[in-house]
């Protein structure tokens, strides 16, 4: 039995835990404000807000309900547009009306929910944050300019939001109805009740382990729905980010958002915000887990590429016994990984980079909310005299799996960078990749693009790069 608070109502859902929240709210609860645009998390028309405790505080995250398994709603506050409607339009709604931010209206609810999430969010206040909140919402009437005008007004309003008693303030300003004042306590009692009833963790043999659902439900929604699902999205022991004897441990169920918001991680990657902006969208990052991205084994998985260049290890657990394996050895072939069916990833472990010597590059047809044509990451460790002490480079979209450029990096180790060395490295690189032509580009393009991204890693050696290109 899945229990949660849906808008202002406590519900018990008997539907399959692997079925989607979207179908539940639209077809069982007839909350039809939430729309179906694509069922693959790429349009945001079905965006809802999910309230859950983070460090004891109720935090709302936007998620695409089309990919959210119902089981992941257990013990949470699920908010659809009907849950923020009241006699008056909320300031989010009113502002969109005032700026003519709606045309056909089909995407509008997604924008309303994402922007309400922004308003509820404690940290986001400025205009860029507000725009980032709707980075997963597509408007095909392409009325983005009027939506931008709405966002400008809203972010202005947020300047008055107090640090304390924000819920009361939001209720007073009619951003949310007053039942929100009781939600924290209602949710706490629900959680207490659920915790008492909680089963001991079941063995996972023959069961489907499901994280955020952002890949499995896109690929095979029906089969997930029919599976006996073990939901690990909320497994506390898999959600930690910690430093253990100089090694950074990222729990398997850490979401991309949690990774991006971690102060510890931000300290290691000064440009993290820039990289993360290139990876999917806010609602998807709120759902997608680290391990999910790795086991998916997509040749262009952004986080796989990220961690490969950190020369990460992954910890695999089977019946309580843990083994470690290099991520670069984890990938064996197309969608083929070194993992037994009853093993699950526990954590990703890497040595934190020093001195801003890490870089992540990604080019896709659309810069944001798109899958890479080619992506690449590089960790470059140079000695004082410019010699490459160590280097790790990964490349996506150029092989059947996320590729660690073994030959290229071993050639580069010990070298000093100049145009000739870069040229030879590129020649070697071209021998160890085998891109194919597909919807994300022709093989020739991917080859050229990887060369360019490889050169982008050496942005500090611009003279050599220019010489190589011939400008």
């Amino acid at each position: 039995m899945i229990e949660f608070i849906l808008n202002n109502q406590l519900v018990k859902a008997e539907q399959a835990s692997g079925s989607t929240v979207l179908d539940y709210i639209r077809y069982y609860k007839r909350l039809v404000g939430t729309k179906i645009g694509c069922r693959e998390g790429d349009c945001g028309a079905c965006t809802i807000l999910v309230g859950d405790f983070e460090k004891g505080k109720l935090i709302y995250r936007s998620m695409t309900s089309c990919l959210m398994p119902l089981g992941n709603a257990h013990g949470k506050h699920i908010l659809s547009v009907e849950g923020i409607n009241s006699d008056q339009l909320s300031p989010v709604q009113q502002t969109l009306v005032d700026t003519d931010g709606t045309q056909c209206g089909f995407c509008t609810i997604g924008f309303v929910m994402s922007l309400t999430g922004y308003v509820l969010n404690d940290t986001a206040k400025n205009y860029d944050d507000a725009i980032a909140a709707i980075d997963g919402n597509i408007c095909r009437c392409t009325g983005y300019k009027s939506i931008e005008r709405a966002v400008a007004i809203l972010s202005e309003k947020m300047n008055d939001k107090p640090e304390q008693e924000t819920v009361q303030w939001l209720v007073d300003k009619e951003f949310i109805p007053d039942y929100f004042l009781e939600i924290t306590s209602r949710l706490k009692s629900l959680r207490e009740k659920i915790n008492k009833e909680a089963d001991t963790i079941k063995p996972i043999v023959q069961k489907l382990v499901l994280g955020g659902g952002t890949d499995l439900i896109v690929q095979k929604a029906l089969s997930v729905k029919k599976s006996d699902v073990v939901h690990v999205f909320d497994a506390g022991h898999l959600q930690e980010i910690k430093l253990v004897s100089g090694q950074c441990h990222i729990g398997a169920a850490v979401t991309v958002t949690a990774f991006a918001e971690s102060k510890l991680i931000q300290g290691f990657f000064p440009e993290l915000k820039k990289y993360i902006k290139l990876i999917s969208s806010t609602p998807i990052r709120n759902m997608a887990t680290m391990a999910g991205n790795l086991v998916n084994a997509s040749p262009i998985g952004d986080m796989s590429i990220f961690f490969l260049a950190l020369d990460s290890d992954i910890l695999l657990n089977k019946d309580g016994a843990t083994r470690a394996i290099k991520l670069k050895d984890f990938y064996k072939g197309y969608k083929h990984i070194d993992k037994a069916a009853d093993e699950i990833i526990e954590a990703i472990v890497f040595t934190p980079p020093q001195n801003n010597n890490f870089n992540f590059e990604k080019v896709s047809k659309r810069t944001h909310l798109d899958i890479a044509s080619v992506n690449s990451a590089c960790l470059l460790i140079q000695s004082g005299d410019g010699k490459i002490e160590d280097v790790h480079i990964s490349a996506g979209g150029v092989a059947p799996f996320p590729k660690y450029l073994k030959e290229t990096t071993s050639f580069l180790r010990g070298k000093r960078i100049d145009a000739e060395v870069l040229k030879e490295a590129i020649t070697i690189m071209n021998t160890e990749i085998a891109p194919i032509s597909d919807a994300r580009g022709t093989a020739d393009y991917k080859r050229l693009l990887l060369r360019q991204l490889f050169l982008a890693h050496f942005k500090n050696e611009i003279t050599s790069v220019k010489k190589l290109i011939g400008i």
Partner: protein
Amino acid sequence: MQKSSTIKDNSPETAEDVAGQIGNIDAAGHVTGESIYVDDIPVMEGMLFVKVFDSPVAHGKIKRIDFSEAEQMEGVVKIFSYKDIPGENQIGGIIQDEPLLADDEVHFRGQPILLIVAENEEAAEEAFEKIKIEIDPLPIITDPRIAFEQGKLLSASRKFVVGDINDAFKNCKYIFEGQAESGGQEQLYLETQGAYAYPTEHDSVKIFSSTQGPTQVQRTVARVLGVGMNKVEVDVPRLGGGFGGKEDQASAWGAYAAMVAWILKRPAKAIPHRMEDMRMTGKRNPYSSDFKIGLDEELKIVAYEATFYQNGGAAADLSPAILERTLFHATNSYFVPNVKVTAHSCKTNLPPNTAFRGFGGPQGMFVIESAIDHAAKDLKISADIIQRKNMMDNGDELPYGQVVKECQSKSCWDEVMELYEVESTKKEIEKFNQQNDFLKKGLSLMPICFGISFTNTMMNQARALVHVYSDGTVGISTGAVEMGQGVNSKMLQVAAICFGLSPEKIKLETTNTTRVANTSPSAASSTADLNGKALQDACNQIKKRLFDFIKTDLTGDEDADIELKNEVVYINDEASIFNWKNLIQQAFMKRINLSAKGHYATPIINFDKTIEKGHPFAYHVYGTALTMVTVDCLRGTYEIDAVKVVHDFGSSMNQAVDLGQCEGGIVQGIGWMTMEEIIYNEEGKLLSNALSTYKIPDIYSVPKILDVKFLNTDGNDLAILKSKAVGEPPLMYGIGAYFAIRNAVLAFNPTSTIAYHAPITPEKVLMGLYTHDEQ
């Protein structure tokens, strides 16, 4: 004060007042989720789900198909094939060449073959997997030029000729030839196609359809069922986007739901998932074209010749009409004395391509802009010199015989040059490009001239039904379908100012074929003009009856000057004791008819296809866009820095709606020219088959600055309240993005071999940056 008993003209100022009050009347419903789309209509018990089983190959003969196992699965009610169609297995609109369900041959991958009808969606999905089909493959053609070579045409080729092209080329100082390609574009209405139907009495059926053409759905369903149109009621609440994709192609989905409901006597819903919609439905026609342009010493275009190979897909659909509009806009905003443009609608093994905002116009304009750009590059001058020199003006005769009137081409262009300081901007860009190695900026100017009217003269008619209820509230039905273009708001404005009535008292009804019959689809940018004029007619009829009633029964003064303002009856410029409400009550008591049916048929227009001459358009819409971009020459990515436009809205009746249409059209046009890439492989399989592989603009890819200046003009009497049509024309400003990006590529690599091939994706940019002309 001159006394007159005629109804006063509605002044545009009043319309703007109403607009100020209402903005977009649907907005509140949109932001609360209370607006109703087809899938939101509460369904009746026993509803069946309809899932289409479609062809897994692009061309072949069906050797064997076995769905016996699938049909016996739990939850599956019936599987329909073409044999179960009670009437005609035919849905072709212009040409009868498209079956509803494939019979013995399939002509494109994604062609519907069977309808799986089940108690729930899951059962239908599982049944799909159990259907066995064997198809003997036939040769697959995806390239329109190959289709043309093999004589595979969907309709007769068309040719517009003016002057003597051969003679003219002989006298040209410069002649340039080349090829231009523009890609397809998925409409990607955020609400997929779909219909919900249930049986009604007397062997009839009612269909809720997400369609731009309710009558087209009605006609198609009647034909498929073999019944009269009077037995088919189509109701359209609203659309979550159409963009042309639901002008013709909604009909099949309406027919699926209706046929199942009609035969099985149960409600039925046919709504495809996104990927089904994308692989089964047609898109904007891709074009491959040859051009030849000749200029004299003064850079006047003396002669222009072009051949367009339109990729029509496997059936005609609307392609013949789209082809015609390509010819109408082949010379864009330019006056060219000698023109020969030829267009072929080529039959390929792709889903039948169809309408998309612009309807062939953008495809035609892209070619002449490419030709001008090609000439400019070879002559080492800026393209805008040629563009401005050849801009059309009043009195010029277009290749199809219409003489240009009230032309705003030069005024828009000149205003752009001055307002947006184009010359100094060009210098700044040049300087920037000298100072930056890996960042290059590019600029372009894109004028547009777009004809308003359906080019099929017959379609330029509309009707409206107005009821004034006895309590003074008003209900309006027209043939217009609201799909985000704001036509509901505009209709409400028309009625509000006609009756001098508060917008709250007026309700826009759904679009329904039993209330307004024989409608033209909401398309060709003409919806507000046609339906608004019909609505004016209906309102004026009622108003006249009311005024006559006032004069004869209330004042006894036959010459009284009567007005309705702010719900008060003014007699001879003075407020009378009658307000709207009691006027209506009294009129009703006196048995005055408070309902009216209005009708409108656009005057003047005509076109004779036998000589390809006439006056097909009520008027033209003009404008010019300046586009500026920055290209990252290391990564091949780009950003649109600014699009700055001067656009001829006439006298806009609703600036909020019109600005939204303009901004949206521009961004959609940029999408077509930049990131939106339809990719089929050689087997005719759509590779860009989902939102993950087909990318449309997101909030980060819109121009950072988008300025739209409303050019103040008198408008045109054939435009509703002199407010010019705005749906399609702005899309073509997006073409400017292609040339701006191309110019930036050439700034980095002057010997680039980059072709006139849109969309200019990051791939084409990067390849263009790093490939060199060997010469």
